[in-house]
């Protein structure tokens, strides 16, 4: 899923400066699962904003709403009756949702309440880690199901650098060395011969470097 982290409160207050009535719009997708942008978080953030603005002698009116997903035109249409009534929308979705809202509601500023951080999963409640960098050309066959692009700090394709120490990455003793994990896994699967194959120079076009990407199911385009 897409992981998002709430922006610093001061930054949110800065963005809303000058607005008197805003819609705080939660998203029922990934950011609900990772506990940063769903209905509950929208409620908490709204109260915090109201309290801060009251304290400042500059009260703000907030409408709270949460839709199923903000990355889908069908669901963001549900905000159509509310948006014209507000000065601005504070979207609690990932960057995709914020942009869907901005494109749909052309006359109203839409601001992000979250920093979209990575594509990952949870290891325990409230603890999320990055696993995929959406490079567009999956290499997990070669690397025992562990991604060196997302999980090696240098995205090295041909093995660990000289900074791998006791299973940890040189940048932080809390970070696992992806190549240690890959080697351990290849060894346990008896696939170490794959390690000695030179991984070719990568074609980064399927990554963001080829420009903004799209995926089209032709059979649905009729």
């Amino acid at each position, binding site marked *: 899923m897409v992981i998002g982290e709430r922006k610093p409160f001061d930054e949110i207050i800065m963005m809303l400066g000058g607005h008197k009535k805003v819609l705080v719009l939660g998203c029922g997708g990934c950011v609900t699962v990772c506990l940063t942008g769903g209905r509950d978080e929208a409620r908490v953030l709204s109260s915090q904003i109201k309290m801060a603005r009251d304290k400042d002698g500059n009260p703000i009116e907030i409408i709270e709403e949460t839709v199923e997903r903000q990355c889908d035109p069908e669901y963001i249409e549900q905000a159509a009756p509310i948006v014209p009534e507000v000065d601005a929308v504070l979207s609690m979705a990932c960057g995709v949702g914020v942009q869907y809202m901005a494109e749909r509601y052309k006359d109203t500023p839409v601001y992000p309440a979250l920093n979209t951080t990575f594509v990952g999963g949870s290891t325990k409640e409230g603890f999320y880690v990055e696993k995929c960098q959406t490079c567009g050309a999956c290499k997990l066959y070669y690397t025992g199901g562990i991604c060196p692009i997302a999980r090696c700090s*240098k995205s090295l394709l041909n093995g660990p650098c000289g900074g791998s120490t006791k299973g940890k990455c*040189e940048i932080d003793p809390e970070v696992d060395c992806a190549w240690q994990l890959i080697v351990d896994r290849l060894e346990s699967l008896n696939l170490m011969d794959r390690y000695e194959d030179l991984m070719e120079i990568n074609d980064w076009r399927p990554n963001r470097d080829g420009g903004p990407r799209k995926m089209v199911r032709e059979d649905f385009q009729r």
Partner: protein
Amino acid sequence: MSAECKTESRLEKVLRAGHFAVTGECGPPRGSDAEAVRKKCLLLKDKADAFNITDNQTSVVRMSSIASAVIMMQEGMEPVMQMVCRDRNRIAIQSDILGGAALGIKTMLCLSGDHQKFGDHPQAKNVFDIDSMQLIQTVRRMRDEGKFLGGDDIKGVPKLFVGAAANPFADPFEIRVPRLAKKVAAGVEFVQTQCIFNMEKFGEWMKRVVDRGLHEKVFILGGVTPFKSFGMARYMAKNVPGMDVPDELLARMKATPKENQAEEGIKIAVETIQQLRELKGISGVHIMAIEWEEKVGEIAEKAGLLPRPSV
């Protein structure tokens, strides 16, 4: 190994002639003062066959490796241009290879590069378009096939002797020899190892290297760094990733009175070189006297490696 040189590199000539090679290292200054490079060069001249010019080592911004290498050549010395993959994509890498060769650089060292987290610009975006193995492949392809990575012909092929680093002390140990084998398969012609303090572990690594016959396919230069003090030894043991300083060495430095520690550090370096010369498969040493360039000559002299052969 073949005695026939593929480049005009002095280091290649020394190695292929069967001499025990010596390389040194010169870190460029944090400014545009050419005299700072010249001063270091004067300390190093004739003390080794060639000298690595580091490429923004530890991700701290310095004068470029290419420019510093040119200044070194003006002093009549042979630079080894280091190049890291951290700061350049394949377009800039190939362009800098052409530029370096055009300016007279004949030897280069292919590295991944330290992560920018360690430097003075931790906010920077890193590149890592290709990795160090692929950089080796890139230079060899440019030199031997006369082709850019994109497939077009190069007019005026860069003739560079191609090196890389090897760290026998990083983890996982089991893949450290296979990793060298990959670099050999990629086309590396010489490697300089990480600083050797744990001779037992290095010996084990070399044994596996020799068992696989890799020493017959790549020249291996053992890395030697003298301790300036007990404090430095302790720092390297505790704070430098991928560095293996055994407790006995730390104890030996600690037991030495402060005023004699530098001398003891040099003694250890000379002993290390002597042990390396006895090891099968070692073709030379790489002396990295970090911000202590004036000691390279003393170490080489005491190890019986001076004068350097003329080739």
